């Protein structure tokens, strides 16, 4: 006598047969299925950073892929690895995903070698986003330090493309030295937009630099802030956003109206690998965008 136990086949589940949509968190799906994407264009920004334009090949997948500013994707170079990268482009630019990538590890190393036409994989989008809806009707401060301009570029697009929804917009950007300034070809364009002010500062000037020199907080001297009428998005290294947020908090901007994007190691983007845990919070699910009050309450966040 034999008892063969029946086989449960997950592939027969109705849910898993639906097209993969990472925006639908609870639905059973092929969690590691990547959307094949082509690197359609590469722009060299600095010695260390390049901007990659990615286009999802499958038309239906491309159509379904939507994201909000602040979200990130897991970018996979098949055979070499996967890394979380925040989306730098505009959400309205359908089907085109812009990723600004610094050469730092194996995967990003390979990417910097790759050429136009390379086929990579994308999963996502993942994570929380900047609350651009809530920010409507307020003064907006968009502040970035260093590579922080990469995630900040998405809300810059969102705000400038929907200019009438927001009041005064101040973009503040600081880097160590002029050679590290990202997206310098876009500054002029941003500056020309009515009611958008762009302030740039470097810590150390070179021969050609004629602008401001110092820490990013120095730029606050030039800006008029109405604390209770302001929302702020701050992207950059922890030390930087800590000082910036502390200043804003001191002048009276509520902590839950300042938003930061945290960087952590991530291997899944789906609240499973635990690598991005801060205490009991998953940066990939509950973040990467947090309001400053939450960050203050997360031990070890900064």
């Amino acid at each position: 006598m034999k008892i063969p136990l029946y086989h449960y086949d997950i592939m027969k589940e109705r849910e898993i047969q639906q097209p993969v949509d990472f925006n639908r968190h609870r639905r059973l799906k092929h969690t590691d299925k990547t959307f094949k994407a082509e690197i359609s264009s590469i722009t060299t920004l600095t010695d260390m950073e390049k901007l990659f334009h990615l286009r999802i090949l499958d038309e239906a997948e491309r159509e379904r892929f939507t994201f909000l500013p602040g979200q990130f994707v897991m970018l996979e170079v098949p055979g070499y690895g996967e890394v979380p990268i925040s989306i730098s482009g505009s959400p309205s630019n359908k089907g085109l995903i812009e990723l600004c990538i610094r050469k730092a590890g194996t995967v990003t190393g390979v990417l910097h070698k790759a050429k136009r036409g390379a086929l990579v994989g994308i999963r996502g989008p993942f994570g929380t986003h900047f609350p651009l809806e809530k920010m409507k009707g307020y003064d907006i401060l968009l502040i970035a330090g260093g590579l922080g301009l990469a995630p900040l570029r998405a809300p810059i697009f969102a705000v400038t493309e929907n200019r009438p929804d927001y009041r005064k917009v101040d973009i503040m950007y600081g880097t160590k030295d002029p050679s590290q300034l990202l997206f310098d070809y876009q500054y002029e364009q941003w500056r020309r937009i009515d009611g958008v002010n762009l302030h740039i500062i470097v810590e150390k000037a070179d021969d050609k630099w004629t602008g401001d020199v110092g820490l990013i907080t120095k730029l606050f001297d030039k800006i008029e802030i109405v604390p209770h009428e302001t929302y702020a998005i701050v992207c950059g290294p922890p030390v930087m956003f800590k000082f910036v947020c502390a200043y804003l908090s001191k002048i009276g901007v509520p902590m839950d109206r300042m938003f930061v994007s945290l960087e952590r190691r991530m291997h899944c983007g789906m609240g499973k690998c635990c690598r991005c845990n801060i205490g009991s919070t998953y940066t990939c699910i509950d973040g990467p965008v947090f309001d400053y009050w939450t960050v203050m309450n997360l031990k070890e966040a900064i």
Partner: protein
Amino acid sequence: MRYLSIEPTKPKVAVFDFTSCEGCELQLANKEETLVDFLKAVEIVNFREVSSAKSDDYEIAFIEGAVSRSDEIERLKKIREKARVLVALGCCACYGGVNKLKNAFDLSTANREIYGNYPKDSMPVRAIKDVVPVDMEIPGCPVNKEEIERIIQHLLLDINYNFPVYPVCVECKQKFNVCMFEKGQLCLGPIARAGCSAPCPTGGLGCYGCRGPAADPNYDEFFEIARRRGFAEQEVNERLSFFGGFNGIAMGVQK
């Protein structure tokens, strides 16, 4: 790699042996199932152990063994001049390996006892990096061929290869092994660097630390454990000095 629009290259590779057992070189010819693919991925232009062809035109030089004689220093310096990338292959090249154990003895006594009236040229053993700059160190006694394959793949693209930094315990546990300490054996697993897949504890032998120390090893607690479990200082120190990776670390020495 064409899917990344990268044309694969075929670097010229040379393999040289110094004071060693040539076991690490042998690993290059092992793992038979992928040997042909391995040989197709690189162009071996100089590899005395398996080929009588000799060329000085190479980009990557793998060095097996430690340095223990004056002529080896000269040979090594010449190789360094020619190689774009110099890789220390195996524990002897990285740390001196077991050869280093001889440094504890007086060489002239050893020479007299073994070679009598015809003493041989020899000097205290040194790792490759103590003689010339090294671009990459591949630890292990012997090296792990699977890791070599991955390293080669990284060298082809000129990107960094990250060695595991955690201790052997991780890989040992993932083999479902009973802890060697539980079986009453001494094991350097908790402080030694992994990447080997723990063949020794799996085969019933406590780790000897051939890949050197893990990142941030907790020596104090390790010594405390050894003491509590009744291992003599001599035994622990013999283990630590065995492959030369734990240079200067010893139990019972005031820091």
